[in-house]
């Protein structure tokens, strides 16, 4: 059971992509690659369960550890626990959906799928790496493809958005780097050498004053990736300019890199500092939740709506992490997975609408349920999931976060929790407004009315497949959450 295959598979796919030409070959290769990844992810899941069932209590399973750079004691050290497995599954789901959605990508298709595959590789590597260097490496690997994807295939002010996204994410990783250096030079193994190894560092206790210095670097650095409050502005522009598949990836996976990093690096390695700063985190997260939700109300572009709602939803992730109770953190992880699937589905739906109607303005759309029932249904499901309807993944994650959050008895935490709960009402408001206008109501496709309304077609098989895959994921969590909780309990 080798985890490296997770990195090698996309690599092979990417190389194969470079060799073949013509949309037909390209997309087939890409899809098959993605399918293999998905299958492998499931194999991993099963293997993981078997090992746990066999009573393997190790913190990480499937570990592999090779020395990479001796002088700095850098290792290529990978392994997986439940959380990583969940994230890997998420990545596999979103990847395959993304490829299916961009099935008929004409412009520079080879490069497009190449970059997508590269992106997924980065994500996999990030989620399985147990060495801070490897982690950082994959974190940055995942940045540049986004820049190109948005800048080349995007729409609207794509260059601006691409540049903004790349620079802000780079800023984040710069901060992460400083934190890494700090952690590295302030821990010494029994052998007396510094180390990047997550597990070892977790054992050796970092001095508290050092934690106090470097926790903000790490947390803010990763926070930028997951839209921590003042640094979230890349999200709306980036998401809305990106091509559909890229938006799915951005919101679905790469925002989760941040959350995962906050959890794994910042919080786990520097618990005391996390305690000390948690109130700040809570406040920022709450601001993000509430203010993101209210900002969403005012958006008129569907992609902006979803982007801002992502800001608000990722606030839950940070909230859960900041609450530092076991349940809340579990909730945060669940929220990562759930939001990944849900927002990917949402972007997919929006993309499908956009491909047909060539507008994303809520004001210009209406009553699409009549002409494209499938897409409309997908849209509705995504919407209901994001407003936390029981039976879909959103509710499970959010209620877990609330439950965990409420276990903190301090007044501030309580207020934060209540505000967070309140946001679900606001969410309902903006989701329903969008849904009521776009899906329901009299049919309308442009300002000029339903002129080309009747020429519109419903989803093709690839789009249906993409949506189905994501919806299955959402339902699997929403209807039977216990497997996920079992998975990420450790």
């Amino acid at each position, binding site marked *: 059971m080798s985890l490296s295959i997770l990195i090698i598979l996309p690599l092979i796919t990417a190389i194969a992509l470079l060799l073949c030409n013509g949309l037909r070959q390209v997309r087939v290769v890409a899809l098959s690659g993605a399918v293999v990844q998905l299958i492998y992810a499931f194999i991993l899941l099963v293997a993981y369960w078997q090992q746990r069932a066999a009573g393997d209590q190790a913190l990480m399973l499937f570990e592999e550890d090779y020395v990479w*750079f001796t*002088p700095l004691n850098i290792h290529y050290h990978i392994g997986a626990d439940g959380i990583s497995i969940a994230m890997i599954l998420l990545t596999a789901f979103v990847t395959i959906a993304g490829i299916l959605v961009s099935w008929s990508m004409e412009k520079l298709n080879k490069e497009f799928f190449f970059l997508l595959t590269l992106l997924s590789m980065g994500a996999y590597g990030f989620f399985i790496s147990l060495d801070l260097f490897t982690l950082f490496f994959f974190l*940055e690997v995942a940045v540049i493809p986004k820049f190109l994807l948005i*800048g080349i295939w995007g729409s609207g002010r794509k260059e601006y958005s691409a540049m903004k996204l790349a620079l802000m994410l780079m800023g984040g990783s710069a*901060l992460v780097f*400083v934190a890494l*250096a700090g952690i590295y030079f302030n821990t010494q193994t029994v052998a007396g050498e510094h180390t990047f190894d997550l597990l070892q560092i977790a054992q050796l206790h970092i001095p508290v004053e050092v934690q106090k210095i470097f926790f903000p670097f790490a947390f803010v650095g990763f926070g930028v990736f997951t839209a921590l409050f003042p640094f979230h502005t890349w999200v709306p522009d980036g998401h809305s300019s990106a091509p559909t598949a890229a938006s799915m990836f951005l919101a679905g996976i790469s925002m989760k890199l941040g959350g995962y990093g906050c959890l794994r690096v910042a919080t786990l390695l520097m618990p005391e500092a996390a305690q000390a700063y948690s109130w700040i985190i809570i406040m920022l997260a709450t601001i993000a939740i509430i203010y993101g939700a209210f900002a969403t109300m005012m958006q008129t572009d569907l992609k902006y709506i979803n982007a801002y709602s992502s800001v608000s939803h990722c606030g839950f992730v940070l909230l859960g992490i900041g609450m530092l109770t076991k349940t809340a953190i579990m909730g945060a992880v669940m929220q990562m997975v759930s939001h990944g699937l849900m927002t990917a589905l949402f972007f997919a739906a929006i993309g499908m609408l956009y491909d047909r109607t060539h507008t994303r303005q809520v004001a210009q759309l209406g009553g699409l349920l009549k002409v494209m029932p499938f897409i409309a249904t997908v849209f509705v499901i995504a919407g209901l999931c994001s407003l936390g309807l029981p039976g879909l993944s959103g509710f499970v994650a959010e209620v877990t976060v609330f439950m965990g959050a409420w276990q903190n008895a301090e007044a501030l935490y309580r207020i934060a929790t209540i505000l967070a709960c309140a946001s679900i009402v606001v969410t309902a408001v903006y989701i329903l407004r969008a849904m009521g206008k776009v899906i329901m109501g009299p049919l309308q496709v442009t300002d000029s009315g339903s002129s080309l309304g009747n020429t519109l077609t419903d989803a093709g098989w690839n789009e249906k497949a993409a949506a189905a895959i994501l919806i299955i994921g959402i339902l699997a969590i929403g209807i039977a959450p216990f497997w996920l909780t079992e998975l990420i309990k450790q």
Partner: protein
Amino acid sequence: MLIDFIILMKQELIITVIIFILLLLKIGTDISNEKILNLANGLLLLNLAAGFVGNQQGMLFNEMFLTNPLIVLEKNILSLGTLIVSLQSADWLKKHDHVPEFYILLLCTLLGMFFMISAGNLLMFYIGLELSSIPLAAMANFDLGKRRSSEAAMKFIMSSAFASGLLLFGISLVYGATGTLTFSEMAGHITGGSLQVFAFVLLLSGFAFKISVVPFHLWTADVYEGAPVAVTSWLSVISKGSVLFAFVSVLYTVFKPMAATWYNMLFVLSVLTILIGNLFAIRQNNIKRFLAFSSIAQIGFILVGITGSSQLATASVVYFVLIYVFSNLAAFGVVALVSAVTGREQVSDYKGFYKTNPVLSWVLTIALFSLAGVPPTAGFFGKFFLLMSGAGKGNYVLITIAALNMIISFYYYLRIVKAIFMDANEQPIERLIIPAYAKLAMVICIVGIIVTGLAGYVYDYIHSLSFGF
């Protein structure tokens, strides 16, 4: 005696021999440029190969000339760079009617660098330095007809003469203060008295001029812009690299006793250099000028690494120079090709470059990413290790500043990438045929960029040779 004289100085000797061969060819019957080019490249390849055989350490002419595996490695890096440059400049030289001269000058500077690197004595060092800089001035002027070329040459010779004047003044003061010119003896006499500090500052300025550290960098951009592309790439990579090697060894051996002082100096200088380099690079439209400023910023990062003053630091610097050779030369290779064929050197000319020349675009892009320090290119590893070695001193302010400056540098590198991939252009650069030599050079560079980083043992090897305190 003679035998180890040959062995220890083998690289210098080979270069000298090559120079003489070319001279003879020059006075002998004239033969076609192609032949000379093939010959020259062959000989350079030979030189590079020779670098790898039998390298033990030792010293000659009572400590005037000393060598050790690290120095040999450094020389090999330089020879590799030289080979790549000469491969790239091939099709520019084809049309040129002074090919042998070009190679003679080039190799003279290379020889000077070798001597400078393995100098064990200020006199030797000085001679090496001059030998490596005076021919460069002539090379900068190699497009005799071009106004800008001659202006560049003038600026270069003037400022380098001034710089060497100050350097010499510094050397004289050092001599006055210590009474010796040999590094090994000198180290004992360095006490950090104010006269010595002043002398050191003058010396430092000499180095700083060569590697264009702010505020001694002002010549760089103009010369880079004016000089022929081959010369520019040579200036930006090889000469800088050589001076860096010399600088590190002098700093770590001779001025070890006053480490505290120069640490602070380098702190200030590196911050200045990164900042100014970045701020200027943002605005440039001429791609050579842009690369000039970006290379200034790179030097800033290298200085951060040097402040580490550990074995890690030396290793990181050498490693980074190696990577820098690959990345920068790859970038310059594309630029050279484009300007040789079309004569266009503006950033705006590269708009829509991907439409017409996908391969070249990818080469340039990868090179720029490596310069910017994006994984999985080698540049990422290089920068990472430099900053780590800087962080080793525990000065996180410096690291934070440097890390945040990475953002700015990202901006301008991505600006080029944006031009290449995203911007539309009505008259893009036409489709270019890549000549064999240039292709070879690019392949070498790209392979280098990929392998040097990911293959850990390269760094391990360099580290095993390095020293520090």
